[in-house]
């Protein structure tokens, strides 16, 4: 092993580490901080040459591969919607209702399993594709020709917390960067005055912040939460975005004072990068105070548009508002938008009351999602926006109690639409009863690999060195589901 000289050590990793430190520490917040001016040109050039990334860490970066989607929106249904009651019909459940399952159950299940339980909803074929959708989603069903239904997704963890973390970060055991953070790290943002990754009304339970956290990735990669699941979407706001006590003119005057003081301080303390960065960060924050509420203000949308998203109906208004906000963020250049359907219960978690619970939940999201798809399409955004819908797992085809279903991570449905996926297409399959993914099985790692691929990122090349090794969203696994690529 090569030993360092007595003075400045020159290990091969040192320069890389130094550059990484600069990227990590002089990170910007929501947007640009005139980075080129702040970092010395030599380091920038080297960084760019070595990592293929340009120096402003948040600036849009070229993807590894031709991208099919430029941005992504994840409509997250917290609690685990039942696939056998929504997008994955199982006629044998009707036939064998009430009988014991004729297949082996997993070694570890969340709760004791009962007999087979048929779906209380009818499935009908829709659209040109003739894909079946249950009566729970009559509005989404009208867009079935835009959907790419993934019927063979599977994970490993049968508990909410573990499954949420797995779906959002790829790991149910460690704190790892969320997929939105990885995508931000890989692609940067198209609007330097906004966060690259926002999550609207996320749940604070079951992993909480870790589900949109940057972990060891640079701070600028973390998701910016807008409210949380306990706030109605009309009240949702970025923390400390408003000052209720000071007017804008007063704050401007105060900001000018701070800027003058900071310039003096830099003159005596030395032109440190961080000191100058902080000067700019105040200006950016001040601008942000205006731009974020503007984007969230839906009053400028026409009545027809508000109706399209269900803002006229108390049942759909809350989720509709989230979806409409999401569209405005996407349009403004936000790279990753997550919209969470979650309430004071674990929304889709019907261990009992399957019929009432799923009826209510579907009624809240069906119209908004259909409106959202229609709107994206009308604006031409659907071509290069990837829409992802689903929960952290599906539900068992077996009964829990008399009218409930347990967690099922072994085979469930998510769907995609838009950017680069086949439309009016169903991919993969669960077994005859819907318990296990058996055909074109798509593990959560595969889902991540596929999402990254659609965005032009190679999941094996999107790496970050931390604590002595290179990390990936997909760890050591992940296969792109080529069968769904348009």
């Amino acid at each position, binding site marked *: 092993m090569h030993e360092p000289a007595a003075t400045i050590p020159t290990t091969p990793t040192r320069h890389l580490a130094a550059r990484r430190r600069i990227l990590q*520490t002089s990170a910007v917040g929501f947007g640009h901080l005139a980075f080129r001016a702040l970092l010395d040109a030599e380091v920038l050039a080297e960084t760019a040459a070595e990592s293929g990334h340009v120096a402003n860490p948040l600036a849009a970066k070229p993807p590894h591969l031709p991208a099919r989607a430029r941005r992504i929106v994840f409509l997250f249904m917290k609690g685990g919607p039942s696939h056998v009651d929504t997008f994955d019909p199982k006629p044998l459940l009707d036939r064998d209702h009430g009988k014991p399952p004729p297949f082996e159950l997993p070694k570890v299940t*969340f709760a004791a399993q009962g007999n087979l339980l048929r779906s209380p909803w009818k499935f009908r074929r829709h659209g040109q594709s003739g894909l079946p959708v249950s009566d729970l989603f*009559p509005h989404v069903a009208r867009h079935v020709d835009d959907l790419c239904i993934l019927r063979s997704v599977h994970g490993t963890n049968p508990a909410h917390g573990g499954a949420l973390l797995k779906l959002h970060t790829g790991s149910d055991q460690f704190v790892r960067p969320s997929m939105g953070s990885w995508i931000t790290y890989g692609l940067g943002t198209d609007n330097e005055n906004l966060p690259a990754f926002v999550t609207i009304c996320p749940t604070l339970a079951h992993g909480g912040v870790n589900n949109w956290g940057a972990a060891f990735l640079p701070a600028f990669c973390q998701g910016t939460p807008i409210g949380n699941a306990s706030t109605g979407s009309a009240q949702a706001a970025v923390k400390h975005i408003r*000052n209720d006590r000071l007017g804008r003119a007063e704050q401007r005057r105060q900001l000018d004072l701070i800027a003058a003081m900071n310039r003096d301080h830099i003159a005596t303390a030395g032109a440190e990068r961080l000191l100058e960065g*902080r000067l700019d960060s105040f200006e950016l924050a001040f601008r942000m105070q205006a731009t974020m509420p503007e984007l969230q203000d839906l009053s400028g949308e026409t009545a027809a548009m508000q109706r399209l998203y269900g803002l006229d109906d108390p049942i759909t208004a809350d989720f509709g508002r989230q979806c409409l906000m999401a569209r405005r963020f996407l349009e403004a250049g936000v790279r990753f938008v997550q919209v969470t359907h979650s309430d004071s219960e674990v929304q889709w978690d019907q261990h009992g009351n399957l019929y009432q619970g799923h*009826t*209510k939940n579907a009624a809240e999201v069906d119209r908004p999602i259909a409106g959202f798809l229609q709107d994206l399409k009308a604006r031409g955004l659907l071509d290069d926006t990837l829409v992802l819908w689903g929960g952290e797992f599906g539900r068992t085809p077996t009964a829990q109690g008399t009218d409930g279903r347990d967690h099922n991570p072994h085979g469930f449905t998510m769907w995609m639409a838009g950017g680069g996926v086949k439309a009016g297409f169903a991919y993969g399959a669960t077994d005859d009863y819907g318990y296990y993914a058996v055909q074109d099985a798509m593990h959560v790692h595969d889902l991540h690999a596929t999402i990254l691929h659609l965005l032009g990122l190679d999941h094996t090349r999107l790496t970050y060195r931390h604590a*002595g090794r290179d990390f990936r969203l997909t760890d050591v696994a992940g296969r792109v589901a080529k069968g769904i690529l348009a």
Partner: protein
Amino acid sequence: MMPPHLRSHAGLLIGVAALLTIVPVTSRSAEPDPAALEFFEKRVRPLLVTHCYECHADGETSGGLALDTRSGLLVGGDSGPAIVPGRPDESRIVEAVRYANPDLRMPPQNKLPPEDVATLERWITMGAVDPREDVAAAPAAAPLGMSLEEGTSFWSLRPIARPAVPAVRRADWVRTPIDAFILAALEEAGLEPAPPADRRTLLRRVTFDLTGLPPTPDEVAAFLADDSSDAFDRVVERLLSSSDYGVRWGRHWLDVARYADSNGLDENLAFGHAWRYRDYVVDSFNAGKPYDRFLVEQIAGDLLPDASAETITGTGYLVLGAKVLAEPDREKLTMDTIDEQIDAIGKGLLGMTLGCVRCHDHKFDPLTQADYYGLAAIFKSTRTFADTNTGAIKHWHEHGLATDAEKEAMKKVDEEIAALQKAASSFRSEAMGKLRAAARAKAADYLVACAAFGPDAPLTEVAAIGTPRGLHPYVLHHCRLHLAYHPDDAVFGRWHELAAAGDVAAIDRHYRALFADAEEAWRAAKEADAKATSIADPRLDAARAALHDAAGFLAVPPKPEFAFDPETLAEYHRLEEAARIAESGAPDLPAAMAVGEATVLTEMPIHVRGNHRNHGRSVARGFPRVMLAAHAARSDLPAASSGRLELARWLADPEHPLTSRVFVNRVWRWHFGQGIVGTTDNFGVLGDRPSHPELLDWLARRFTDSGWSIKELHRLVLASSTYRMASSHPDEASADSIDPENRLLWRFPLRRLEAEEIRDALLATTARLERGLGGKTVPLRNRQFVFNHTSVDHTRYDSLRRAIYLPVIRNNLYTLFEQFDFPDPTMPTGSRVETVVAPQALFMLNAPLVMDSAAAWARALIAREGTDADRVHAAYEAAYARPPTEVETTRALAFLRDSAADGTERAWSLLCQGILAANEFIYVR
């Protein structure tokens, strides 16, 4: 021993006979049978190429398995041989393609068609004839990382040297041996050290450094007035003996110990007793506990001959990690928890990424899976979990400190809480029952109303129809959906006909009569037989069942917000809140999060690829081999105990190559903002090399020679000229070109205050800080949910005590902590990052903490005697430990004049906030 494919002769013949094709068994020595070869070429090879080669050929060896050579199959991967020729039922590859074992399914995406499975079975039955050449004999299984020999000569694993203090040219600069090492390197690089910092700067620096607080104007004045030669030394002694020292330096250790007041990860439960560990750490620093003792207590405080509540509390270190509490697989939970402990010890105490070795030998460092499982056996012999659980959530292990009387008293508290919880749930179910009864009484009205709108109607429209008729909008809405979902339900067949015909009156007549008859028949049936479960008339029985089905057409929404009227909802929330507050405020039985001893495992199997269901060879309990060479060989671990005490003592040995090096480097990092080894938690191959290797060893030796005294180490560092340098340099440009990262310390590094310092300085400067040490501060009962499903954040951060006493909630850190780089409390952190992000500015501009502090400060300044200029002077002294310049005074006064229209107090408040938000406040030179 006979090769397996020959041993299995007898069974094979039966199998082969069954195939009606007699294929002679071949061994490698014999010439392969042409028919068998043909079978392989025509059937097996294409199958392998199509389905397996993507991951198991051409150097791709997922799971360590190559399927493109014969030896690859026979030797197999991490899980053992893929085939046993002649025995399909014993061949892993057959088990995998049969898809019967949920943990071993190949190919992972799709089950092979049955005929392909049969082909593989038949081929193996036939003896697995395989003509494929072994491509350039697979590379010998060389260790992935460094060999043991290379490892023991790697810089951080070599015995700690006793380096001589180097000679330097500018000997007058040298106040302590540290300076000689630093200056020698500077001189060699052609650099000059910066001049000494001025006294105000130095005092502000050392006060923040040792206590996390700014110096008071009085302390500044006293130091300026003291012209004795040991004035600074006496400041250091004053600070080291103040209890604020333990608050500051204990917090540093809490970063390494990944301290938190909640579990985070999957289920966020309060660690209601973690504070005892936090206080233990603060007290240990304040008491000057030697580091070796501190370390032994944290690993094995329960096993010491003089074990006490204090030393047992120290083992909270092992229990504090984030755990997947709802993990249903106990064995996985156990191994994941052990992994977390080994990772914490590896990074925190040894600067080694031991966690990397769970699944494979280390790719860079001289650490093997045998090392890992040797340690894992010690922790598997340790109890980190109790046997109890709450539903799916497992309980971590605690050491009870309660007396019998306290336990008795607590029963009453628990009963009171349970009663309040029951009051809320009973109220809810009663109210729901009433709503159901009310809906049943108006069943026909609901069906009539449903004829007035379609299933697509928005709730506003539904409410407009239902409310005037006294119908619940949500029930009515659900009723309409139910009718749409069940067009074939016989009970409602009539409704669909009549509704289509628009005959509302007939709906009313039909269903009013039907339900009345059904209820009457039901009453009669119950009267006749109290145990009756149905009515004889199937038509009426179906109506009765529909009427009483809680999930049927009259289902009441289970969510109280939708079901209850405002008054009922308010009452329900009041009861729920009363129960929650009672629980949050209730005391817990005194206990410490601590480990205990479990059944001793003297050895345990290596887990192949870290998979707890895939066991390899067994290894005995032990310590990483590469670290043994440098100091005394250990004796065998006792059979009667876990071996933790021996592990602790082995770690705390002055000759251990890592323990003292890692710790003195941490202390150096906390004083200077960067370590001698930059990667404080990684002393391995991928970590940084020391900028001053001799100094590191000299400090390590000096530290252990002093009896591992941390305060002695501080004195040594703080007495140096190195520490007292200015943060700017007269020849900055040239120094910067030689050593841009200031690794050689040609000036003192500027640093931003850490999150807690910012918060405490805001309160201290504005005279709002409340003093006092220790005690429970997380406002939750032990194991109470921090976040259940509601996402409502009940944790408050408005306490005015020092920030170390604010709750550390994993998954949802206090905003100020999160934005100002408080470390992720799930992993050991020796070196916090320093970011500049816009949310920090939002916080300084808009957060109530800052606004309130500025307002309080403004009022106090206005109340002072003197002129506005005097007040500005006082503000600068308090915030920056210096008076304002004339320009600054003028600017501040001008700002006050410009803001005069807002009123005096508001103008001052704006100015004060500006002073607190400016760079000078949160940067230390």
